[in-house]
């Protein structure tokens, strides 16, 4: 059968699809697949005859003949091309040097994609206006036409317009030269972009100051860097091509386009740009995603910039490509991704101040994968599973009741279940018992305490030189009241950011006392409420994100009019709106109008700027607010954010599951920012309740929430748990005996234990202040320190139980349940009994079991 089809196909080949056929044949190793492709080819060819009216306005429409579908379905449905797309979807070429590279991507029935740019058949409706060479379109003559792109039985029409085909656009410093400096890495931080330059020559980092760079290139040392009389002898070119010694080595060849651009600029007199220079308004990277199967599969990228004058330009050769996962999807300097090991990657292209990215999934070629059809408890599972299916990962099983019990107690209330609570839950036959337990825990006061603690970190509640103990405590109480009363978070944040009045009478104003520096305040607000670290943009445009210095100082301008004056009580400060005070841009000293990050420039005339900002920030107009809060909540329950770290939102650090994050944000906003409801959704999801045990498909996954994860207990919770199970009360400064560590109001109140295990001092807003990494002092402290050994003895639990006549076996069971929320296994009981038999003192040996349980990994981790 195979042969027959094959030969039939051969006979049917015309000149124009022979090329395609050869490539496909080369790419196929297996006979069956070869046959399918041959069939497709034939079908595609016949398909063409039928499908003459493809929609011309869309470049994404796949058109297929019935015949194709029938034939391919018969053979192997997974290899069938279901969609053909051409990027960009329309092309406009303006001036003689313009061009546009095209990428043709086929999507197969099983979700894989193929780069078929060199296989596709390309014809012009009207020849003579443009030419197509090596995947790129070049202008020839003015006019409009259509490009027909055909492959695998699909056809896509790409409209083309050509203008000013014979006119040469003059070389522009900003539009042409600056991108060359960027592409060649000249203005990187480790090269001339360093604050003091390199080897005596400085460029602005990532080109934030084109005027300054122009000056330094042409005027700073007259006659040195450029030579207009003999442009090719300019030091600029000689250094970059390695013709003279250059610490940075050779950056490009004399024959390269980069060289040509600089050379033409020099020949034209190295002039400064006259008049208004068009600004880059947006950049697009295509294709938006790719699912590559098999090592070595490639996908080329095309990057296009859109300018403020309405023109666009192919900047693929000028863009700076990077990938966040070199193991799976390395990308070359000219924008070709090559699949490597299985995994996910986000590939970004940077041009000017814009960074854009696309998703890549790399799968093995052959994989026996069957979707396990896991049940879905709520929308979270649906969205998680959608992604897992794409990755060919099956989620784990649901965890046991014991595991669920421990996990949900630690996560919701920061404590362990007592033996009574354990028995009650384990004995319950109610099919809804997990749901009921979640509701029960959400109603406990400890739930509030956990979130007050987390917010206290974000709001940096601690004593400082400006904030003494009393206002700190008032500030903390204010926060506590907000959370306890279930005040919608958006309202709380609005109240906080627009707070005015005395730090005693209006304690939220302490927010502006714990940090008083205008720039720092704006950085903190961006990081806490939008999840963005904009610090970089204080000194240079953010290299991996969209934020420019303009954005930074525009945002800071909201906080430039905060007034502070003494109140009657010397410990109190009154925070008010001064109504004056501006922020100036350090380059050029422009006065910056307040501008929302990624948003508009509002009218602030006569208003309190902070109030204007607060209203926008904590609203649905700010696309980051609800997403950021949902992500923070999510991260608490999973140990990592959907965007991770939660306060490192940037273009080059995308959400692993944007659909999920969007949905959580939408619901959070619908719930009127009610934390409890959000937590309820998360804890009731199957995803939250997954076991940590992995299967073959998800063992390597650590980012897509396909199994439960191990998370060390944070310092406060760990100490509270030790205190709880040993029945020894804590004592912290300012709190009554028996208070828990999560109730500590002041970031500066700590103990050796809390500091050693990484409690945040709240000196910064960074989520990284809470440290979870192990260290030597922790191990020594648990082994030898007073927190375990002494507490076991002080609590006298073992002695009491033995006095009550509890048998060692039952006592071991109780200790296991107390510490690990499970009963000991048979093997453990046997093992322990053997070891314990050696020791005469029953109390001592049981204390040693208690000690071992508190030192065990199982105790230290939430799982």
């Amino acid at each position, binding site marked *: 059968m195979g042969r027959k089809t094959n030969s039939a196909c051969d006979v049917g080949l015309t000149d124009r699809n022979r090329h395609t056929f050869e490539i496909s044949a080369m790419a196929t190793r297996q006979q069956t697949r070869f046959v399918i492709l041959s069939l497709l080819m034939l079908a595609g060819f016949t398909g063409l005859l039928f499908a003459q009216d493809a929609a011309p306005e869309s470049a994404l429409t796949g058109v297929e003949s019935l015949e194709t579908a029938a034939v391919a379905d018969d053979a192997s449905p997974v290899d069938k091309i279901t969609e053909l797309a051409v990027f960009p979807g329309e092309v406009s070429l303006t001036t003689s040097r313009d061009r546009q590279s095209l990428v043709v991507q086929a999507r197969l029935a099983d979700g894989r994609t193929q780069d078929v740019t060199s296989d596709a058949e390309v014809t012009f409706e009207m020849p003579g206006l443009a030419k197509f060479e090596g995947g790129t379109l070049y202008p020839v003559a003015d006019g409009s036409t259509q490009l027909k792109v055909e492959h695998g039985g699909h056809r896509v029409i790409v409209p083309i317009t050509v203008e000013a085909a014979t006119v040469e656009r003059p070389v522009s410093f900003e539009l042409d030269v600056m991108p060359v400096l960027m592409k060649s890495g000249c203005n990187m931080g480790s090269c001339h972009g360093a604050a003091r330059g390199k080897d005596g020559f400085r460029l602005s980092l990532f080109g934030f100051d084109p005027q300054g760079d122009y000056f330094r290139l042409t005027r700073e040392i007259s006659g040195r860097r450029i030579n207009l009389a003999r442009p090719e002898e300019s030091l600029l070119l000689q250094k970059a091509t390695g013709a003279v010694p250059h610490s940075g080595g050779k950056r490009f060849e004399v024959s390269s386009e980069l060289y040509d651009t600089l050379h033409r600029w020099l020949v034209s007199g190295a002039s400064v740009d006259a008049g208004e220079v068009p600004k880059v308004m947006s950049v697009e990277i295509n294709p938006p995603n790719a699912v590559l199967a098999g090592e070595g599969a490639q996908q080329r990228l095309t990057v296009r910039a859109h300018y403020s004058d309405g023109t666009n330009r192919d900047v693929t050769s000028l863009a700076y490509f990077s990938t966040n996962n*070199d193991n799976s999807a390395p990308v070359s300097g000219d924008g070709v991704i090559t699949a490597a090991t299985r995994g996910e990657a986000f590939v970004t292209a940077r041009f000017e101040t814009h960074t854009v990215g696309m998703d890549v999934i790399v799968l093995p070629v052959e994989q026996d994968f069957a979707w396990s059809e896991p049940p879905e408890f709520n929308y979270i599972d649906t969205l998680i599973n959608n992604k897992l299916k794409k990755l060919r990962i099956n989620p784990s099983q649901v965890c046991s009741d014991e595991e669920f019990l421990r996990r949900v107690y630690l996560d919701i209330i920061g404590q362990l279940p007592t033996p009574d609570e354990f028995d009650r839950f384990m004995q319950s036959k109610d099919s809804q018992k997990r749901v009921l337990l979640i509701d029960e825990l959400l109603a406990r006061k400890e739930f509030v305490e956990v979130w007050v603690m987390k917010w206290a970190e974000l709001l940096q509640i601690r004593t400082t030189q400006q904030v003494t103990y009393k206002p700190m405590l008032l500030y903390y109480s204010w926060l506590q009241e907000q959370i306890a009363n279930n005040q919608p978070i958006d309202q709380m944040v609005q109240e906080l950011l627009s707070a005015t009045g005395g730090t005693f009478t209006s304690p939220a104003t302490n927010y502006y006392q714990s940090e008083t520096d205008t*720039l720092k305040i704006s950085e903190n607000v961006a990081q806490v409420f939008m999840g963005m670290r904009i610090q970089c943009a204080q000194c240079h445009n953010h290299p*991996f994100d969209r934020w420019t210095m303009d954005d930074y100082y525009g945002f800071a301008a909201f906080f430039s009019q905060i007034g502070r004056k003494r109140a009657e009580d010397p410990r109190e400060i009154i925070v008010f709106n001064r109504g004056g005070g501006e922020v100036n841009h350090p380059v050029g000293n422009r006065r910056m109008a307040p501008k929302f990050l990624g948003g508009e420039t509002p009218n602030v005339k006569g208003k309190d700027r902070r109030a204007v900002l607060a209203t926008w920030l904590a609203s649905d107009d700010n696309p980051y607010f609800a997403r950021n809060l949902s992500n923070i909540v999510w991260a608490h329950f999973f140990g990592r954010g959907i965007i991770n770290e939660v306060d490192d939102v940037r273009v080059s650090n995308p959400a692993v599951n944007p659909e999920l994050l969007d949905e959580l944000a939408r619901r959070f906003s619908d719930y009127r920012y009610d934390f409890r409801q959000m937590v309820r959704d998360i804890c009731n999801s199957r995803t939250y309740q997954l076991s940590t045990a992995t299967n073959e498909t998800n063992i390597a996954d650590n980012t897509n929430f396909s199994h439960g994860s191990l998370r060390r207990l944070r310092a406060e919770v760990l100490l509270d748990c030790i205190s709880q199970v040993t029945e020894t009360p804590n004592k912290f400064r300012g709190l009554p005996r028996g208070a828990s560590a999560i109730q500590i109001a002041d970031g500066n109140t700590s103990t050796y234990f809390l500091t050693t295990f990484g409690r945040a001092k709240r000196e910064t807003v960074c989520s*990284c202040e809470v440290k979870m*990494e192990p260290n030597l002092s922790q191990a020594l402290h648990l082994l030898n320190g007073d927190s375990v050994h002494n507490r076991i003895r002080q609590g006298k639990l073992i002695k009491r139980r033995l006095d009550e006549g509890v048998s060692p076996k039952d006592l071991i069971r109780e200790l296991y349940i107390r510490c690990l929320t499970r009963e000991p296994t048979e093997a453990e009981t046997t093992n322990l009994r053997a070891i314990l038999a050696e020791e005469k003192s029953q109390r001592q040996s049981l204390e040693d079991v208690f000690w071992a349980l508190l*030192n065990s990994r199982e105790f230290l981790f939430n799982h």
Partner: protein
Amino acid sequence: MAHTKNRRGFIRDFLQVGFAGGIGLSLADLLRKEAHADPKNYVSKEGTAKSLIFIFLPGGLAQQESFDPKPLAPIEYRGPMGSIETNVSGVRFNELLKRTARIADKLAVCRSLTHGEAAHERGTHNMFTGYRPSPALAFPSMGSVVSHEFGPRKNLPPYVCIPNQPNEFAGTGYLSSSYAPFSLGSDPARGNFRVRDLSLPNGCDDNRFARRRRILDAVNDHFRNKEKSDSLDAVDTFYDRAYAMISSPQARDAFDIAKEDDKLREAYGKNAAGQRMLMARRLVEAGVRFVTLSYGGWDMHDNIHNGFNRSMPPFDRAFATLIADLDQRGLLDSTLVAVASEFGRTPKINNNAGRDHWPKVYSVVLAGGGIKRGIVHGSSDATASEPEDNPLTVQDWATTMYKCLGIVADKELMAPGDRPVEICDGGKVVEELLA
């Protein structure tokens, strides 16, 4: 620049150096990743200095009253104190540095250190990290960098602080907190000195501890079979290190200052300066790579004469003994000793008979570990106001010390946000200082 996902991930970082031998499964991966990434990477290899003792004198040590006296300057610049000759001809120290003057031939005195930070915390940041403070990044201390690059040696923590981490900049910065210093938690000058949590608790002898460990193994077994995770391995690693330290007599002895001959303890001085430096020597001798100790308070805005009379003699005795002791044991050539403060003090005596903050020029001292002996590097002008010859930047100073340790300071480590950051940016090795 190609970046690897989640590069700040602790484990990978942690495995990269030091522990690769122990848990080497993903080392190959790692190296491959490193090779892919553009960041400048060099493999650190022990240099001339196998260890470093960093003696930090917080507050801002006056250069005039220590290593750079100006006996010929007018009285308001010279100050109230005199100077003495040292055993290096033409080099004079403050009159109180009597013993140090006799070992000056083993030192390299740098009199031209210069930076621009006149606030304590900013200057301190400079001296512990080699960087100016940045709003965007918390830099790791030199000790944590050494810990990151080399890992532990002979069952001892790589980076130890005596008695405690002296300030926030002596920590790990953007590196994982696993590279944090191990703090003694108690001052060796105190009679009841005991390193925190190093010895077994009361009522627990070696036998009982051994049984506890067996029970712990039995308890851990279940979980170990059930769960595999890098974060569990990391906890195990530190437990193993703790066991090694607790059970290695050599390691335990290193921290036991009572084991030291009493005559030598006297020679160092039975005070904070003496016993801390002696402890530092013990630790370095036993295998610790980087010891940071702080001594005194040198922020002498008022009555600088009294201040020095109080604080300097113990330092002089201890420091001179330390250098001589190290040399006698043949350790000086492999141990770099650095004395530094966050800045110097104003050229002129102020109205309160003190001096104020002055970062423009001041002195630091280096000795041993590949540093030339008996030299003065750089100089300040006649009134100790500006560097005159060979200004030494903080970056140069740090880069030179890193060089002795076998670390190329230009190497880039991965900071949050996949940002490659040099260990020390823009410094050069000061060849004149190297032996």
